[in-house]
């Protein structure tokens, strides 16, 4: 159902904006921009006719710092890229270095990585849905339910790594330490209880008329445009493109697990939202399989040196399916103690590039919903 007329202005970019146009600056301190992000929006009435994203407010020189510190020292800095998903950031960086240096990872560490990455996906998607509902006007309440569930997963992270968000847990050739006593049982309990929350969330969102009016047919992206713009992750799959790196690359031990990749049909905000709830159910299925067959054994390859780690000369690109999309690290080694080039390919940044195409012709209130449905974290966009 559509409550208001959408697509009043044709989605054509014009350099000269004519008529009664109001130019406003949204952000950088806007509560719905998920951080410090600014958009210069030109409005005809309430309809967006031009939108220019402005970012860089959170720029911390991540890549240059990576080139000036040792290989290991970049690991805690990767936590701060997408600060919701430090475990997957760690994994992407560790995977790139392992590819570059040809390091083997023990079996138990691979399982542990899958478990932690899928838990990260659960908490990221849960909190994203909470924030998205907050953006659509459901102030606070669904967000608090989401954060309540996220807290249980963060407690697990704290028990295993020592920190709730800045985990710094993965190492080249495995994970830093083994699980504490009883951690796997706690994880099983959390995973078994999570579907109850998902059912509750589904009741809240699936048939809610306000959400449907606010989200269906808003911010549509065709499959062609999504592929051209280089979108990845749930934002791409919402447009109906079957591309999941867990299936395509099969990195780690993902080929061993049975799971489905949910696909959208319309590429609008509603599909992007539903993509997250469906992905969480698949994550739970992966987690149940991984927690059932995790073997005993070491978690760190003993051949890898902690100090004075020098990979051979060469370059490597490792990529994983982070909760927000393809997260890749491109590393060039000259055989020294620090990388010659350290480049991050962040999913949020690339997914943000077609924000204008998504927003043209929609109301100014829809901009926040569209931005929320892309799922960005400014730590990763600005680096």
């Amino acid at each position, binding site marked *: 159902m559509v409550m208001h007329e959408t697509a009043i202005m044709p989605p054509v970019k014009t350099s000269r904006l004519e008529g009664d146009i109001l130019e406003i600056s949204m952000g950088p301190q806007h509560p719905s921009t998920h951080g410090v992000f600014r958009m210069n929006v030109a409005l005809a009435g309430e309809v967006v006719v031009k939108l220019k994203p402005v970012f860089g407010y959170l720029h911390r020189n991540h890549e240059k710092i990576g080139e000036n*510190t*040792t290989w*290991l*020292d*970049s*690991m*805690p*800095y990767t936590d701060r890229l997408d600060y919701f998903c430090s475990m997957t950031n760690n994994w992407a960086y560790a995977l790139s270095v392992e590819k570059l240096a040809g390091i083997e990872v023990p079996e138990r560490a691979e399982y542990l990585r899958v478990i932690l990455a899928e838990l990260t996906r659960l908490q990221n998607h849960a909190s994203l849905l909470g924030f998205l509902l907050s953006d659509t006007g459901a102030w606070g*309440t669904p967000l608090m*339910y989401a954060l*309540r569930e996220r*807290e249980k997963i963060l*407690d697990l992270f*704290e*028990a*295993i*790594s*020592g*920190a709730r968000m*800045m985990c*710094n847990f993965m190492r080249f050739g495995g994970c*830093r*330490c083994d699980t*504490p006593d009883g951690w796997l049982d706690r994880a099983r309990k959390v995973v078994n209880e999570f579907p109850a929350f998902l059912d*509750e969330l589904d*009741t*809240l*969102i*699936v*048939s*809610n*008329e*306000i959400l*449907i009016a606010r989200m269906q047919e808003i911010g549509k992206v065709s499959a062609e445009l999504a592929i051209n713009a280089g979108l990845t992750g749930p934002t791409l799959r919402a447009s109906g493109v079957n591309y999941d790196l867990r299936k395509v690359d099969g990195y780690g031990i993902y080929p061993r697990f049975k799971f489905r990749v949910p696909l959208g049909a319309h590429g609008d905000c509603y599909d992007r939202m539903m993509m997250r709830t469906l992905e969480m159910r698949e994550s739970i299925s992966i987690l149940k399989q991984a927690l059932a067959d995790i073997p005993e054994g070491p978690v760190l390859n003993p051949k890898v040196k*902690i*100090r004075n780690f020098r990979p051979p000369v060469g370059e490597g690109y490792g990529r994983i399916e982070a909760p927000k999309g393809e997260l890749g690290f491109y590393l060039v080694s000259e055989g020294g103690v620090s990388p010659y080039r350290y480049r991050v390919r962040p999913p949020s940044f690339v997914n943000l590039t077609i924000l204008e195409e998504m927003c043209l012709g929609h109301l100014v209130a829809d901009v926040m919903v569209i931005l929320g449905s892309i799922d960005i974290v400014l730590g990763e966009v600005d680096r």
Partner: protein
Amino acid sequence: MIGAGIIKGMAVTARNFIGSYFEADRLTTVQYPEERDEIAENYRSFPFLLFDGADPEAGLRCVSCKICEKECPPQCIFIIQERDEKGKPIKRPKVFDIDISVCMSCQICVEVCPFDSIKMDKCFELSGPERFNALLLHKADLEKSNEYYHQIRPIEATAVDEALAAAAAKKKAKAA
């Protein structure tokens, strides 16, 4: 029927609201500081220096090798080695400062230390009267005993003690 979805959603909210009075799962708030959650064994805040025995000066494990100073990603550790009257270096730090307003609790100093002398603390209530000297910890503030380490991390401390004892026994056997 229009509005049915909203009514279903409101039922969920009502169930959560009323449930929060009866179900422990829905009552997640802890009344800090009167009530406190148990802290995980692995939890880490900021580094401290370990010493054996009762005297912090004699028992300090740190030999001032400066590996942690070099490896620290935000460069928050500052060490000056002790020297005797002739200017010969002694294996002891004269100055050991950690600026915890810079420290990001990454635990890399603990991992690279070959002497098990730097460990992560669990104390998180660190507010000070001002933001410069109150957050710059000197050697005297950082020195904590092995008993304290056993108190905050019983499992890890026992493992470290066993490894150190095994290494000492091996060294003794080699010398004999």
